């Protein structure tokens, strides 16, 4: 059954009115927009406006698809002990994600240019402190998890670094995700969701999605904390650069500790 009322031009010269008729009983709608027979309420149909929320949802699904695909394919590399495969698959996915995000940002370039405004000096300091804090949280949750479930949970990380030098590891594990993930989550997604959801809900949404795409059950706390911290850094500084630095510091510490013998 049609969900909208019929709309007919009266066709009489001098009568500019548009008459509306109930789709069920055929009677005319009253001036107060109620069907005189059934009592249904007619709401004025506006021209459908495409909301940015839906396009951002599609963008999020695309990013999730790319990252999940990378994790699934690299999981086969973990099974076979093939560190080269893990490295190249993860890097290809990060690169693809960066390309998609840059293309997205390029379409909305006026807004995206603001991502790279230079923030005040104190936000750089907050970013470094945030990077250390989230790294500390990650270590804490790893210790708790290892105590509860054993070492096996974290067996993929050493394999990922196998056979690559420190500089390459820094570029691929610290620099690349800081650029690609921050532009996607704190750039495109925050801009896309903010108008419909408001900033607080947007920060929670992007933090949860950031946690989800990492697909690590035991990293819940530090990933959500990092997502929230980066979102608020973006808001307060008005730039994406501090959140990129925070992400970089966190990931750099992972690499540095591993290569320094802590791994």
């Amino acid at each position, binding site marked *: 059954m049609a969900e909208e009322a019929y709309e007919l031009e009266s066709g009489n010269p001098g009568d500019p009115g548009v008459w509306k008729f109930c789709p*069920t009983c055929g009677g005319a709608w*009253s001036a107060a*927009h109620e069907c005189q027979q*059934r*009592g*249904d309420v007619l709401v004025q149909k506006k021209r459908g406006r495409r909301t940015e*929320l839906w396009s951002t949802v599609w963008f999020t699904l695309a990013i999730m698809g790319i990252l999940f695909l990378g994790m699934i394919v690299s999981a086969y590399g973990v099974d076979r002990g093939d560190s080269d495969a893990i490295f190249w698959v993860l890097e290809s996915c990060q690169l693809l994600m960066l390309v998609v995000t840059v293309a997205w940002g390029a379409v909305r370039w006026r807004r995206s240019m603001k991502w790279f405004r230079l923030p005040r000096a104190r936000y750089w300091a907050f970013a470094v402190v945030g990077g250390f804090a989230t790294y500390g949280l990650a270590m804490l949750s790893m210790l708790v998890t290892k105590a509860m479930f054993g070492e096996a949970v974290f067996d993929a990380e050493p394999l990922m670094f196998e056979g690559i030098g420190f500089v390459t590891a820094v570029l691929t594990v610290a620099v690349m995700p800081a650029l690609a993930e921050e532009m996607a989550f704190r750039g495109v997604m925050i801009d896309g969701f903010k108008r419909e959801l408001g900033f607080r*809900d947007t920060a929670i949404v992007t933090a949860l999605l950031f946690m989800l795409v990492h697909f690590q059950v035991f990293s819940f706390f530090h990933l959500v904390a990092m997502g929230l911290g980066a979102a608020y850094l973006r808001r307060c500084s008005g730039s994406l650069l501090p959140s990129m630095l925070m992400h970089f510091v966190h990931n750099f510490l992972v690499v540095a500790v591993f290569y320094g013998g802590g791994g």
Partner: protein
Amino acid sequence: MATSCMHCGASVPLASHCTNCGMALPKEATKARIIGTGGASARSELARNRHVKELDKAAKSGSTALFVVATVQLVFGIILGSMMEDKDAGQALIIASVALGVYFGALGFWARHSPLAALVVGLVSFVGLHVVNAVIDPMTIAQGLIMKVVVIYFLVKGVKAAMEAKKIRAGE
């Protein structure tokens, strides 16, 4: 026989029009509806309130869908995990299922307070996780297909309703 007028709320005798406000009353055995959705808004305050109420109800169905997903994850994950012969794999499945169950359950509760945000996360998570499952094992596409379609339908409907309700409340 008396009825409650949907326009003014007064208890009036069942007739074609309300004796209190004069507006049309729904005919017997018919249920008054809001006609037209999608970027639509009613012009009168009364109709707007009724519209928002209906939209809130639709958004709530999205929250219920999240609770259903949480329950299914928990129950089936624990049952399948405990039935597996490989104990390590079984434990991993139980941990993952409990985590996802808690995650979707928490989103369901959040959806009662912030329906739009929670349903967007729920929708993206649900679709994303099932796409992953489908890539890992294409046989899972057909498993529980009707439930997947129903859940996605209610989540999408909930997101749309929550967006519309928000716009009407904001007076757009």
